[in-house]
């Protein structure tokens, strides 16, 4: 039976994503690189601070991987957590693996270590820019239960390519945060169908916010990673000007839409209400027939 990405732990994802037995962890749990701050809050720590980083092979090619554990502190960026990711990306600049894969599963910044987490996110984005300029693809994979929120959403937007499954959510403000600040009329976070329509994998793929849609299996994410590594856009003025145009065009075309289904209809989807029920294969078929969803403007 295939392993569900959504259900798997960060370690299970990494182990099953790469070629068998090929994963080598950097600063593993036995080194006990744990948060120095959580005990002040009477909170339990994790031996890996909620992120697994290391090197493995994908069809024989060396890749670097970082996998967040969404169940530990919501996969949030703490000081150690963030530093492990930053260290991995910096190492990749000089060690030049064929790609770096970031397996996102994060609610954003860990509030108990907010300043460290926030700064680490900025460091991560700069390191990704350096890697991309050096021609090393950075591919994000989003399909965990914590989604990809806050600064995680910004890092995802910095990657060369993104693969997302139906369960994956990519956003800056989470539904609960918007509801808390602006009220349930603005965003009813308990209406989970609305949540997923607004920031879930299918919407992100249809709107061009992600490059590949995956079934919720490790095999599907592996296939997606292999595909996306091979078609990473350059990080240069042309790409960013194309992205500028792409995002401006999105706002011009859909800026007055209240619901994702209106956007999908304008994109040319015949049965927008039926999109959430589509299987991955049928959804891929739908996407293939629409213009603008697949692009290099990232």
């Amino acid at each position, binding site marked *: 039976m295939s392993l569900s990405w959504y259900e798997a732990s960060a370690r299970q994802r990494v182990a099953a994503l790469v070629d068998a037995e090929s994963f080598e962890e*950097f*600063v593993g749990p036995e080194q006990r*690189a744990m948060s120095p*701050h959580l005990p002040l809050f009477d909170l339990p720590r994790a031996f890996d601070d909620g992120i697994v*980083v290391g090197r493995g092979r994908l069809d024989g090619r060396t890749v*670097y991987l970082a996998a967040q554990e969404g169940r530990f502190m919501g996969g949030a960026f703490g*000081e*150690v957590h963030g*530093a*492990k990711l930053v*260290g991995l990306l*910096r*190492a*990749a600049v000089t*060690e030049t693996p064929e790609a770096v894969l970031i397996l996102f599963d994060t609610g954003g910044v860990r*509030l*108990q270590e*907010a*300043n*460290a987490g*926030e*700064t*680490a*996110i*900025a*460091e991560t*984005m*700069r*390191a990704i*820019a*350096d890697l991309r300029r050096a021609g090393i693809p950075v591919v994000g994979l989003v399909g965990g239960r914590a989604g990809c929120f806050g*600064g995680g*959403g*910004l890092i995802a*937007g*910095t990657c060369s390519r993104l693969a997302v499954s139906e369960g994956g959510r*990519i*956003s*800056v*403000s989470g539904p609960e945060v*918007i509801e808390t*600040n602006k009220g349930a009329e603005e*965003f009813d976070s308990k209406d989970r169908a609305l949540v997923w329509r*607004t920031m879930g994998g299918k*919407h992100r793929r249809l*709107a061009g*916010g992600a490059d590949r849609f995956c079934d919720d299996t490790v095999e599907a994410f592996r296939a997606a990673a292999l595909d996306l590594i091979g078609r990473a856009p350059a990080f*240069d*003025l042309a790409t*960013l*000007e194309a*992205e*500028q145009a792409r*995002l401006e065009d*999105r*706002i011009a075309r859909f*800026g007055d*839409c209240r*619901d994702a289904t209106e*956007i999908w209809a304008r994109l040319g989807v015949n049965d927008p209400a039926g999109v959430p029920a589509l299987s991955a294969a049928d959804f891929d078929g739908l996407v293939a027939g629409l213009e603008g969803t697949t692009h290099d403007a990232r």
Partner: protein
Amino acid sequence: MTLAEILASLFPVGHAVAVADGLITGRGPLENRDLAVVGVDGDTPLGIEGALALSAAVLATVRAGGATPVLVLVDSDSQRMSRRDELLGLNECLAHLAKALLLADAQGHPTIGLIYGHSAAGAFIATALATRVLVALPGANPSVMDLPSVARVTKLPLEKLEAMAKSTPVFAPGLDNMVQAGAVQVVLDPAKPLGPQIAALIGEPPSHDARDALGKDRGGRPVAHDIAARVVDAARA
């Protein structure tokens, strides 16, 4: 300092910097060269339109070529919290702005962030924190989240958090803590003209991202630098 005071101090002979809907764009002369200015004023939340307006200005500077530095002035709220912004891909728009700044810097346009008011969360990351050097003026108040909100999320009493904030810079809001974390390199002297201070920073940019080393030295991020270094060592082993 207010934005007007800052601009006056930066550009004593005048400038072409304008503010519209809380978004700052324009340019001014700095020591015989042009300085591009973008930013957010008036505690304004940064949404999709705002992010794209700023990124367009940054990319225009890159397209124009040369080595025009980019100054990012920040007194913002957090990212704009709305269903519409998220529906239309706020994460992409904010990341795009950050990427534009990172690209500019990489292509020889030194980027300097100057925070003179508030900023928080995604707006902070996409603007000030995406520059090569981030500096501040006294009274600036960067934060990830204010303490009452932290209390709500962590379910800890506000009084306890306030007490902890005094001894634990890693989570507490405020400029001092961001300086200690290494995110803010230096606090400028408002009594002196800002132009020369900024020009000096442009003249001696750090060659690499040294924020974690600063955080270690200043005690606000005690372990990040060493952990990152350990990962690098392990990868090279």
